[in-house]
């Protein structure tokens, strides 16, 4: 994290236009976390299946509300649980607008995505980002992610314009 301004330096964004709901993100996450995935797919009705995971909010309510300061932010801005401090009260779940944190029945602590802290430490990408077959999961410094999102939107708009016989 940029300590002077408090701005997170990493942002992950799921491009739901590109996502086909194949479940590779969840599969690799499950595999590296011994059978627990921190990016989960849900059928929101009628077979529309998409993944959801922690947004690593810039002003994370879970970090604010945590009574033991177990919910923390690492140097890249990823919000993670310090298991040694967590008491499993799940105040973080109450605070989270997206229902992300879960209680591990094994460690009795809150668990959630840490953007693959360990892989990033080795200079690798989070597994879900690295393996997504549609490049729907984008990670980077926030401005780069915002630019990519707009470029993708523009590509869709231009494709639609061209398909109606427009000329540029």
């Amino acid at each position, binding site marked *: 994290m940029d300590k002077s301004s408090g701005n997170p330096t990493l942002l992950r964004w799921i491009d739901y236009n590109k996502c*086909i*709901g*194949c*479940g*590779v*993100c*969840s*599969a*690799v996450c*499950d*595999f*590296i976390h011994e059978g627990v995935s921190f990016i989960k*797919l849900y*059928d929101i*009705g*009628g*077979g*529309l*299946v998409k993944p959801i995971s922690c947004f690593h909010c810039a002003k994370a309510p879970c970090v604010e509300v945590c009574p033991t300061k177990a919910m923390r932010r690492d140097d890249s801005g990823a919000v993670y649980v310090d298991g040694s401090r967590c008491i499993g009260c799940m105040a973080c779940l109450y605070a989270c607008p997206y229902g992300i944190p879960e209680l591990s029945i094994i460690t009795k602590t809150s668990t959630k995505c840490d953007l693959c802290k360990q*892989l990033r430490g*080795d*200079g*690798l*990408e989070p*597994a879900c980002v*690295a*393996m*997504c*077959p*549609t*490049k729907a999961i984008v990670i980077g410094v926030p401005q780069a992610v915002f630019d990519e999102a707009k470029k993708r939107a523009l590509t869709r708009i231009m494709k639609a314009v061209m398909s109606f016989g427009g000329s540029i």
Partner: protein
Amino acid sequence: MKFAFLCKSKPTSMGKRVAIIGAGIAGLSAAGYLTCKGFEVDVYDKQPVAGGLAALAIPSYRIPYNNIDEGVEDLVKSFGVKLYLNTKVMCGERHDEGDDFVKHVVDLRNIVKEYSAVVITTGTWRSRKLGVPGEDAKGVVDALTFLYKLRLAEHGLAEEFWTKPKRVVVVGAGLSAVDAAEEALRLGAEEVYLIYRRTKKEAPAGEYYVDDLIAKGVKWLELAAPTKIIVENGFVKAVEFQRMRLGPPDKTGRPAPIPIPGSEFTIEADLVIPAIGEVSTPPFTQECAEFKQFLDERGYIISKGYRLGNTNMFVAGDVLTGPTKLGEACKHGLYTARDVERFLRGV
């Protein structure tokens, strides 16, 4: 797809060789894991390109081939994975879809002897038949073959041999049915029917995708199943259907479609695409005395876990589970690879 997502570079070699048979998502996921654990990985595939169904059946507007290819390139160039394309590994004889590109046939028994471990990820390269008269007529093309030929043409590996179909009938409501119907629309067919024996509610692809196709112009017809293909001069002319009603749940837990006698009707078509599922294609058949004990009477692999008995063979992905989504194939590939690692480390 960065299949070697667990390591930056190849670690010191463990000096043990693993063969992976089938370069689909399960096989490539296993290859990525095993190469990151220091094993020498050789991947065999009968197709001219790697990626399996994700590269050769799933439409490229869903998964651009480049996304898979860059992961394969990375495995080969940065991690020393050897890729043997156009190579079918078999024990016993069987012809499946996509065998046309096979230049070399390697005996599975030799592979099993040469490598410390073998991972079987050969997928589901055979389509279920409708089982109605006239099914062998020209113009009846199963969804897998239809989607496969379209991908081959995109890869520049085949001519686009279809004259533009006018009236297309797709039978089924799974994801391959949905993809086939959408591709038929994109080919410029005048009318595309998607016909399913249950209702939209039971459609395996889900109501959302059926509604999406209807919005794009596909004609949806439910509670009807084909009874025969009407053939003229060897070519399909029409399909006869019978109306269905829903009965009590069958063994899949879904309401059973029950034919309504005397309710037959026909729909004219010049292209009929059965999309009623694909079946497992293991690299050995009942003719293979050494391994036939691992097959059931239908020729599918039976296995309690990923390892086949006490052999050095492991099995993962759709060949074991039947058709699934990419996520399942990837997950099985990774967990199998971990079992292979434990087996080879002797833990």
